[in-house]
């Protein structure tokens, strides 16, 4: 079966001879009974150390309660852990020392045999299969074969169809394109939910924003994951561009906080440069320039939330984002 492709001619004709196993060198303990006795005592001591570790663990378990403070918890953890470690290391070291110092350490030799079964076994195996096929009478019944393959291929649908049907809940992937922001919805502080007055914001200040009424949503976390916004007040003269006319208010400008790379919250704002940095993969956005990407693995600017001020001076959204927020996906522009 195994065709040796490398022909014998390419092998160096004269190779060295294997000199055979070297002489066995006895250990000190094999020659000196005192040394042997000493090894035995070491093994005993290690087993004893292990038992002490177990006892120590149990003492620590009962004697050291954990409270609500860090000190008692870490005290308990260290003493339990050390007890466990000694209990285990003692057994391990004892067993290994026993095997190395006391057990017979003569190396032995065993022959290997080729993995492949010998030709007569193979022949018998093939015969079994041909006999079996013959017995099954399948070769003369093409329709039966088709029916067998067909029904076995079809039946997994009984598991797959309900699975695929249910596993994505309503499969409404269109939801990825919208957030709960809509016209007139107040911008509120995350997490307190306090509405924000334009007059409260100094130039250079940053506010993490959630939409008003987030807690009443059906799935607040799902909505929050899409709707979080970063609000920054710049000097209006510093704003070089925006994603839409009149989308900011007196230098107050709002962008989606979800990175357009893979969706981390973009949380690090550098006041001097107006740069927003994503701490996950370091995509950097220029807030003063329509959140243009200035560095990193993101491609697109953070979507801008158009904002205005209502009659009472509170910041409100003019509308939802004009594009899907967060990481890219195939049909995001469709």
């Amino acid at each position, binding site marked *: 079966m195994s065709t040796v492709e490398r022909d014998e001619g*390419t092998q160096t004709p*004269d190779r060295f001879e*294997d000199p055979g196993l070297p002489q066995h060198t006895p250990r000190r303990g094999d020659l000196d009974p005192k040394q042997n006795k000493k090894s035995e005592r070491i093994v005993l001591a290690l087993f004893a150390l292990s038992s002490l570790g177990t006892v120590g663990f149990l003492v620590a378990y009962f004697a050291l309660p954990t409270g609500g403070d860090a000190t008692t918890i870490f005290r308990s*953890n260290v003493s339990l852990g050390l007890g466990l470690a000694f209990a285990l290391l003692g057994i391990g*070291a004892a067993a290994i020392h026993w095997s190395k110092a006391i057990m017979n350490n003569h190396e032995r030799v065993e022959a290997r045999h080729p993995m492949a079964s010998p030709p007569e076994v193979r022949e018998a195996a093939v015969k079994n299969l041909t006999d079996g096929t013959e017995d099954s009478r399948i070769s003369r019944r093409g329709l039966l074969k088709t029916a067998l393959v067909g029904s076995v291929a079809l039946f997994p649908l009984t598991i797959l169809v309900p699975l695929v049907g249910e596993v994505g809940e309503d499969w409404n992937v269109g939801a990825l394109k919208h957030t709960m922001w809509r016209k007139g919805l107040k911008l509120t502080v995350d997490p307190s939910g306090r509405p924000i007055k334009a007059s409260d914001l100094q130039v250079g200040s940053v506010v993490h924003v959630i939409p008003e009424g987030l807690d009443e949503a059906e*799935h607040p976390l799902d909505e929050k994951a899409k709707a979080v916004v970063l609000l920054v007040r710049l000097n209006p003269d510093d704003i070089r561009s925006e994603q839409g006319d009149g989308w900011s208010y007196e230098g107050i400008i709002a962008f989606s906080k979800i990175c357009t790379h893979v*969706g*981390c919250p973009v949380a690090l704002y550098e006041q001097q440069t107006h740069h927003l940095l994503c701490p*996950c993969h370091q995509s950097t956005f220029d807030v003063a320039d329509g959140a243009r990407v200035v560095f990193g693995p993101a491609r697109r600017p953070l979507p801008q939330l158009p904002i205005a001020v209502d009659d009472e001076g509170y910041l409100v959204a003019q509308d939802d984002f004009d594009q899907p927020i967060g*990481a890219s996906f195939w049909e995001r522009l469709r």
Partner: protein
Amino acid sequence: MSAHTTTTPTAKAAGATADWLDSRTGVGYAVKGLARKLFPEHWSFMLGEIALYSFITLLISGVFLTLFFVPSMNEIHYEGPWEALAGAQMSEAYASTLRLSFEVRGGLLMRQVHHWAALVFMAAIVTHMMRVFFTGAFRKPREVNWIIGFVLLTLGLAAGFSGYSLPDDVLSGNGLRIAEGITRAVPILGSYAAYFIFGGEFPGQDLIPRLYMVHILLVPGLILALVGLHLAFVFLHKHTQFPGSGRSNSNVVGYPFFPIYVAKAGGFFFIVFGVISLMAATMQINPIWNYGPYDPSPVSAGAQPDWYMLFLEGALRLMPGQAEIVIGGFTIPLNVIVPGMILPVLLLGSLAIWPFLEAYVTGDRREHHVLDRPRNVPFRTAFGVSLLTAFLVLVLAGSNDLLATHFNLSINDITWAFRVLVLVAPAIAFWVTRRLCLSLQRKDRELVLHGHESARIVRFASGEYVEVHTPLDEHERWIRVQHEPLRPAVIEPAEDARGVRRTGYRKDRFRQRLSQVFFEERVEPVTPSEYAAAQAHRLHAEIEPDDEPAQISAGSVHQD
């Protein structure tokens, strides 16, 4: 099994038990065949054992954790003893992890044992795989076991990531969001794939229970089954051995499983578990109470995934955003697809197929049970090192923010440096490793031909000084000459005697070209005739030093 003449009551009881068992199972066959099976000894053979024992440690600590962890995303208000989070809104998963840490005595220890064991598990798998790769232990008949091991590596990644995400803290939650972002990037089906995993929009209500099933049933079940198969193959194939006197391709030299490895390997399990416990006792890991419960808004700076995911993280960080393209209105985020999907498939896939590629190139269909010394297979060793280098650059790139803050460097400069390095460093590593391997082989030749430097200086009557070299003993020499030289494939000519072009020549020619890339530049082991010539010359030189220079050079590179 019952035929022993027993004397002591214990021996009698043991005999009776053995008889009972054997009469019902025929276990005698297994004990007869396996109990005294020989295993060769080498420290590097313990790397796989570490993986096995840390996995057992994971199972033991994992069972403990499941009894207290609640895999639910229901939001509750915290009422436990940890005051920093009093009244905070969090999922039951997070709250139960806090309970495990603070209220269950020994719970924190088990959590930390579990997490450290996972890190050790992955590290042991990777280093074990390196040992197998660099020594050529994957060669016939062990290719199937290599693939099983490779699948175990990927399952280990899945186990690690799914477990890391279960506590539902801010750090792991952001990791999941990244996973969702990568999933979305899949062309055509991306958003559906994300809905499939998360049961709708991120984060949804289903993910933690689903991950829990994956983490405690699906993945460990598969790992357990494959580990069993992996070990069964080790018994079936008999373990490989390093080259040495008396160790050949047709024998195994080692110690019997019972009692030597029962004691050594059994003891080693306790050592591995013990060291992991020591780590868990003294080194804090994943203090989720500091991170806070998951909330889609906050994120911590300087966050790192567990080490085995860093290469993916690094790849994501390095890929420039310009790669995202829109074709016909459809978005194809190559800035995510390339580092998040294509690159890991290339890196890991090249490992998976390596045994088959190498077998194709060498055309070697024989069984191999004696391991290669890495220097004797320069191309393979260089390829392995360059793969590791790429991996290392990506790991470092995954920590570029920490490098920036610790060394006061610009994050942009670091990222650019890594963007260049990830392409250049593997090539340099390949070249350097190959040169090193060839040099080490020349060193071996030098040693075999001329012996050890003895530091004994002899002055001849003519006034010339020479250093006397002591020849290697036959065992030292054998290690350096036992391997077969690897040469480019020799193929049949393109045309037969009558000038007819034979079919299959182009295929053969391709294989030959590839094998020339692998083996063209090589150093071959010393042959007895070369050795004899060198000995003759040495004796000659010691008696009559003013002779012509040596005929046999130590570094004869073959270029044919």
